[in-house]
């Protein structure tokens, strides 16, 4: 305990500005705040300390000689000390919890020495003081004894040696203003502008190095006189500054539920967008990677999703909402298959921090767009100091984590013979299927002879032909730095990914400039510029079936008896089904998308007076995405169309103007008042164009000469849209004596989508926090270092419904007369003048704590969110001209809790181990459905069921020989799945609750919920000397999944000679009657046996294991070139533990692009 003693002192000097958290040091000092209030607090402190250390002059004897005159009546001790600082060069340090600064005193002295003044001031109190140089140190006499070793700094005695060195952060940036204190004394110093320090100490002394947001380092002096220190971020610290909408807050002062992602620990070497790396990082945030395709994103949900109109999470990058950029265009041909993250344009390496505004009170400041939660991304900014150059390179070797196992040629022949034999038995009603005498029907002839089977391949499949080893390499360079007036951060990133399936890949360049310049004491400007160009190669995949089968399904289907390529270079087709292309022939397709995005964001700050700053921000976000593809004649569909070319383009321009005024005022008592009001106007304009042609003379032109195609009617299309948002918003935060914090915010949003008097929606929020640990009764708690309870209530909105609420006639429903196409026009939608915002109201209770000296910290939250006026299309009666009308159709509720814990299990000089764990639970249920919806709701669906409940029939295994055929399933044969008759309909179509001997939809029940009951993340970081090991895992529990792939493999067994999953070799047959898997023969009750292939979707995915090595200081000493170097190896996605038998429990749907396992080697070098 004693080792930490000095840092509990707070520094106290001239009182214009109080920084309450320099680690636990309090500093009061008059400084010119160089930048506006928005400046990262860490930076401000750096400057403060820097100035402080520069101003300090060696003034031995100052305290003896200086005389002060004071005349103050009935003021606080604080005020007196403040005045002393103002009038003199003294600095005051005190330990926060021990000194009562609010005590009222009157003092009137004429040219009195400081000692006398202090004696008077603290007479009959527990406060003691010491004077060292120009420093006044206050403490509680009764608790702390000053070390007798206290000696003035810079006074070198005989036993002491001069220790000097250099302090930097992990990336090698010098840290100015690091506080260095000799343990057990108040002797100390700060690092200078270049991060250098020197101090006198004796052998055996301990020095502590502390810096805001960094872990405190303690070293013991031995023989070395040069000691360089690398400080590491202390993410768990409660003093961390987090970005909230339109401002920042200290983590410990937060009143809402805000999750932070520790970006430092997230390995981005094998991903192209940050959303894919968010899974398991923040409690309550579910990011499911639904495809393994290069550039694919994740489907991100915060606290469930109880809305149908949900526009998804709102991403705000450096204050600019970035949703709504130009999306990936369709292909124009029969294949889709481009799944892309909208965050691909942001280089993950540029990200400084990510905050997740989980509850409505935090998100309410974003009003109508925050209904699904908000993710705030802050990019890196330059820091004061010399230019720092950072270079990262990584190479990830990738191969599929798992891929479908289909029959080898030999297995295919055996199983197809067997299945056809079984079908022959069934069709002719022989053996277990009936009493037909086999001699009376034409005999069964096996398709493949014993010779064929013996000569066949025993391994391999067409799926091997479309797989390959992939890689992802990244080069990342950044230059950053700045001085008191200018800050800059410039970066470039090159990413090149070769996908694990043929024809898939991604090439990306991103560039960023973050620049800010102080023009005068009043004005500051800043520009953030993010440009990116992504070139992706699109494999023809997708969920299309039969003739629309993409590359993966075509390979899945391809009979192993048919070669992949002929000797003449042509691609043979399955002779029984010539509509699916040869899987290998997909490599002949050219299909690429080029996406560009330029996001410029400029702001001007005008500090009207000390606490009040005006900001105007303008951002312009241009994005285009252009896809070009060509199906050549060497590919089946190119052959049929004699070459097919398409060019498709989407363009979006989003402009945003925002005016904000912020107020930040601190009071002597430790109270503060801050607020922001603003106006924002956003306009989104989009348009698109596409053209295509067929029948080309040659494949050589690809899509580069559309005119040369000779299709009768080349395809062409275009569209345009415009959306407008106007919003007013404001927030006030009152922190009363650092114990009680109250925040209120309000936003008024207007959208062009609604009718005149429904255009604006109002979204208020209020939240409060009580820092119990600041209360007197908790001050001496040995357990709680920090304890805060929060309660908040907020509202957010959603207007994401179609293009507008107005009646429209639209072109469509064209028809052909003669041989010409005529344009039809129809009443597309009806007006709903009452259509209004969907509003989410959320109540959240939370608890933040830090115990055992910070060893364990965490948060617990409970939330209850109701979404009312749900936006959706209300069904009109079947007879209506328009099938539905946009309406507010009901109310849903999301309830749940979240827990996150950070523990520092072991921390010593050589070894440390920290663990982060989070778990969350939510449930989305219906609370109210509109009468129109209720009327047509299938009877088996409960009015208040879960939103994503899964309904189905209850299956009862496979009918075995000798078992009775259920009366409700006449015609069922052995080997087929039984379904249970559980219910029936009466004449009005209502459920009777009684089995009626008929299998129909009355017999469906709720089988489960596709939402996970629990999501969790688990991260461990170990550090041993220069080595570090990071293991991260996440998962989901209590989740029902439908195994589409398996259902399909059993449902379409050997149709058209298609290959199927190898596991169906164990199917039921008259020769394998003990099997519990269906026979795959034609089943008259196919619609009723769905749930047979439903499985438990729980899983634990070990996402990454990273081992890093930092070059030791010793090696770096004595040269000026390199400031730090780190090398690492990383295994991404090594394995998943799950009982789910499909491809992957996260990858959704049917024949998906497989997720990859990556082996990464990388380095990070700073100059």
């Amino acid at each position, binding site marked *: 305990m004693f080792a930490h003693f000095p840092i509990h002192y707070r520094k106290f000097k001239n009182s214009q500005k109080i920084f309450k958290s320099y680690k636990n040091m309090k500093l009061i000092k008059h400084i010119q705040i160089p930048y506006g209030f928005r400046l990262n607090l860490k930076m401000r402190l750096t400057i403060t300390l820097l100035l402080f250390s520069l101003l300090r002059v060696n003034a031995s004897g100052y305290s003896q000689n200086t005389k002060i005159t004071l005349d103050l009546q009935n003021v606080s001790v604080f005020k007196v000390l403040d005045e002393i600082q103002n009038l003199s060069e003294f600095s005051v340090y005190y330990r926060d919890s021990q000194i009562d600064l609010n005590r009222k005193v009157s003092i009137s002295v004429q040219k009195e020495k400081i000692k006398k003044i202090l004696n008077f001031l603290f007479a009959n109190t527990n406060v003691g003081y010491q004077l060292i140089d120009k420093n006044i140190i206050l403490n509680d006499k009764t608790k702390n004894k000053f070390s007798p070793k206290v000696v003035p700094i810079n006074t070198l005695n005989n036993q002491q040696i001069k220790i000097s060195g250099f302090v930097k952060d992990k990336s090698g940036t010098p840290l100015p203003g690091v506080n260095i204190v000799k343990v057990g004394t108040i002797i100390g110093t700060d690092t200078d502008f270049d991060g250098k320090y020197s101090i006198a100490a004796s052998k055996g002394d301990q020095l502590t190095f502390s810096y805001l947001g960094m872990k405190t380092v303690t070293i013991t002096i031995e023989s070395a006189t040069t000691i360089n220190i690398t400080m590491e971020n202390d993410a768990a610290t409660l003093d961390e500054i987090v970005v909230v909408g339109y401002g920042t807050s200290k983590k410990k002062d937060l009143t809402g539920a805000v999750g932070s992602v520790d970006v430092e620990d997230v390995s981005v070497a094998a991903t192209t967008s940050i959303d894919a790396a968010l899974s398991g990082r923040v409690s309550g945030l579910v990011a499911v990677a639904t495809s393994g395709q290069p550039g694919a994103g994740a489907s991100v949900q915060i606290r469930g999703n109880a809305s149908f109109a949900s526009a998804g999470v709102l991403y705000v990058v450096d204050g600019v909402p970035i949703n709504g950029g130009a999306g990936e265009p369709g292909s124009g041909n029969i294949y889709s298959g481009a799944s892309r993250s909208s965050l691909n344009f942001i280089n993950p390496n540029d990200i400084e921090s990510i905050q997740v505004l989980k509850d409505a009170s935090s998100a309410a400041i974003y009003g109508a767009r925050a209904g699904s939660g908000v993710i705030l991304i802050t990019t890196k900014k330059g820091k004061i100091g010399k230019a720092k150059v950072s270079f990262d390179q990584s190479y990830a070797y990738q191969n599929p984590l798992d891929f479908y196992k289909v029959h080898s040629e030999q297995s295919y022949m055996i199983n197809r013979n067997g299945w056809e034999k079984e079908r022959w038995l069934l069709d002719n009603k022989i053996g277990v299927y009936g009493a037909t005498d086999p001699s009376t029907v034409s005999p069964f002839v096996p398709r493949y002879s014993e010779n064929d089977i013996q000569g066949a391949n025993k391994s391999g499949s067409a799926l091997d032909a479309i797989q390959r080893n992939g890689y992802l390499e990244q080069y990342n360079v950044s230059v950053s730095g700045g001085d008191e007036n200018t800050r800059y951060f410039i970066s470039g990133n090159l990413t090149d990914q070769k996908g694990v399936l043929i024809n898939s890949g991604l090439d990306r360049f991103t560039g960023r400039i973050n620049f800010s310049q102080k023009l005068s004491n009043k004005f500051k400007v800043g520009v953030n510029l993010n440009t990116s160009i992504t070139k992706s190669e699109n494999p023809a995949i997708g969920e299309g079936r039969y003739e629309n089968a993409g590359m993966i399904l075509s390979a899945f289907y391809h009979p192993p008896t048919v070669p992949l390529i002929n000797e003449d270079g042509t691609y043979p087709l399955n002779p029984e089904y010539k509509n699916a292309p040869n899987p290998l022939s997909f490599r002949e397709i050219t299909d690429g998308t080029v996406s560009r995005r330029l996001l410029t964001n400029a702001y001007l700050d005008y500090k009207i007076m000390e606490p009040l700053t005006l900001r105007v921000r303008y951002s312009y976000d241009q994005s285009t995405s252009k896809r070009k593809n060509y199906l050549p004649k060497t590919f089946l569909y190119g052959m049929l*169309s004699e070459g097919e070319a398409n060019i498709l383009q989407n363009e979006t321009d989003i402009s945003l103007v925002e005016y904000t005024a912020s107020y930040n005022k601190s009071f002597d008592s430790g109270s503060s008042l801050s607020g922001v009001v603003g106006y924002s106007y956003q306009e989104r304009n989009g348009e698109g164009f596409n053209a295509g042609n067929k029948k080309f003379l040659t494949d050589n032109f690809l899509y580069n000469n559309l005119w040369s195609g000779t299709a009768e009617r080349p395809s062409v299309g275009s569209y345009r849209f415009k959306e407008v948002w106007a919003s007013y918003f404001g927030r006030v935060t009152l922190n009363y004596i650092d114990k009680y914090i109250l925040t209120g915010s309000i936003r008024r949003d207007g959208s062009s989508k609604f009718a005149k008097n429904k255009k604006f929606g109002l979204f208020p929020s209020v939240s409060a926090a009580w820092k119990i640990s600041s209360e007197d009764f908790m001050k001496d708690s040995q357990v709680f270092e920090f304890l805060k309870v929060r309660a908040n209530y907020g509202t957010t909105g959603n207007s994401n419904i179609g293009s507008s609420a107005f009646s429209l006639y639209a072109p469509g429903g064209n028809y052909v007369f003669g041989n010409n196409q005529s344009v039809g026009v129809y009443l597309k939608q009806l007006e709903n003048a009452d259509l209004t915002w969907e509003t989410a109201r959320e109540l959240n209770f939370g608890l933040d704590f830090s115990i055992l000296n910070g060893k364990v910290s965490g948060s617990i939250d409970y939330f209850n969110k109701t979404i009312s006026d749900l936006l959706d299309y209300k069904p009109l009666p079947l*007879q209506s001209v328009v099938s539905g009308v946009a309406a507010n159709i009901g109310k849903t509720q999301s309830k749940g809790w979240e827990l996150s814990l950070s523990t520092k299990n072991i921390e010593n000089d050589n070894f440390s181990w920290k663990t982060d764990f989070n778990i969350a639970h939510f449930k989305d249920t219906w609370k109210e459905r509109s009468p129109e919806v209720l009327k047509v709701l299938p009877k088996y669906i409960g009015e208040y069921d879960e939103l994503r409940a899964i309904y189905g029939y209850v299956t009862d295994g496979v009918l075995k020989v000798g078992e009775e055929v259920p009366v409700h399933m006449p*015609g069922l044969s052995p080997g087929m799945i039984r379904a249970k008759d559980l219910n029936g309909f009466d004449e009005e179509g209502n459920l009777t609750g009684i089995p009626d001997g008929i299998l129909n939809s009355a017999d469906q029940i709720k089988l489960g919920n596709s939402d996970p009951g629990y999501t969790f993340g688990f991260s461990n970081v170990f550090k041993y000397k220069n080595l570090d090991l990071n293991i991260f895992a996440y998962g989901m529990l209590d989740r029902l999944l439908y195994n589409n792939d398996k259902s399909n493999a059993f449902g*379409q067994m050997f149709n058209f000679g298609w290959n199927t999953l190898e596991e169906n070799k164990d199917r039921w047959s008259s020769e394998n009657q003990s099997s519990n898997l269906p026979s795959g023969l034609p089943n008259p009750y196919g619609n009723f046996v769905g749930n047979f292939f439903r499985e438990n979707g729980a899983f634990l995915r070990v996402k990454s294991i990273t081992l890093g090595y930092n070059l030791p200081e010793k090696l770096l000493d004595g040269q000026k070139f390199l400031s730090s170097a780190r090398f690492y190896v990383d295994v991404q996605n090594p394995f998943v533990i799950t009982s789910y038998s499909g491809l992957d429990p996260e990858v959704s749907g049917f024949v998906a692009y497989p997720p990859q396992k990556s082996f990464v080697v990388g380095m990070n070098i700073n100059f």
Partner: protein
Amino acid sequence: MKNIKLKLVSFAVAFVGLFLFNSCHGDLESEIFSEFAPSTFYKTEADAEAAVTRIYNGLMPNWQGGHASASTSHRFQGSGTTEELLVSWAGGSTSGWGLWASLNYNADEWNVTIHYENMVPAITRCTFTIGKIQEMEDISEESKKRFIAEVKAIRAHLAQLLYGYYGPVSIVVDVETASDPNASPQARPTSEWMVAQIEKDYMEAAADLPYRFTGTDFGRFTKAACKMGLLKLYMKEKKWSKAVSVGKEIEGMGYSLMNNYKSIFTIENEQNDEILFAISCRNDFEPNTNGWLAHVLPGDYVSPSGKQNVAWGGFKMPWTTYNKFDQNDERLEVLLGDYPIAGGLTKRDPLGAIPVKYGEDPDATDWKQGVDLIVWRYADALLLIAEAINEIEGPTTEAINYVNMIRNRAGVPEFSITDFSKDSFRDMILEERLFELYCEGIRRDDLIRHGKYIQRAVDFGSPFAQEYKILYPLPRRAIDESEGLITQNPGY
């Protein structure tokens, strides 16, 4: 360095300044760039024509339904529920294609309830459009009349299809109700009302439509098509003399049999004299496209023309049906017992013969073919007249002559009046209609009219064939949303 910094600063200042002046603030009015506000539509003749075009879309709502070829089409269901078709895809746990031959459907089967969901609102749209066109001021009375006549014909046609599937159903023929999105569903009408409504619409439409549309208007409803609709209606209602008289009207409208059966269904002979009503098709458009060949050609079929067709290999005519044909019947030219495969060989599928019927579109690049889909043709009308005459007065020379016109064209021996009693003539004509009209979606109506629809499925061995399956079930939603006012068909 300082220079650069200065430049950057001035850039930043300029940047901010520029943006400040550029910002604009709209008044949150929605701007529509590619659609019509209600105030801008139903003004010109082109508007009315576009609205009517959309009404035609009710005949072909998508490539699977309406008069197309896939699972929800009248063509497929009219044949698939009879002895005409079996589906190769009826394997596996997707029972969708397997249910037809055994009549294994109930009110949860969307393939049978979808007609209601498609056509009931389509009829309301007809009524709505009639109302809108009637209100228009700036178009000629003549155009108005023709547009309204076309819409009424379509309304009658859809109502008749609905009547065939479900019996009488509640449809909106009142303009005011059609324009009111909050109008509540009405109870089902009587058969008499339904039949009268269909008859009235067809008759009113026929009065204002030409005998025939050709060229770029081909595919529109004509007087002949209206009369054919009426003929079908009278046959269904067993109003034999009305059937004969309307049939004879059709005879006088200039339609005739093609000389060669196969040539009726080819792209070269589109708009031929035998076609009373068709859906014009293109090979590059949906839904007006012909997907029949893709549905019937087996995967290993090799076209004599050398063209590679998309071949899904679904539909087959069961051998028991195929074997009823006279082996010299020219109609077998497009119903292949043995079909050509690679190497100049032929193959016989164990399930059945290949009802190719439609000719290839040489320009088709995928499953979509441009050959017009025939809904009704003259041969059908002739056989119906013969059937009606027999019902009135037994087998007459006149009746047998109609049949022989068809048989002559097919190259099979003529029948003589002495071969038949009234009953055997009836059976003969049902059989002849199979040979002539197979896979045109007409069989279901024929079997029902002859009382053999359910027996056919029983003979097939279906455990699901019960008398009530003559009518399809209404969607549960129709019952639910009317809160029981609309009643389900019995048995479901």
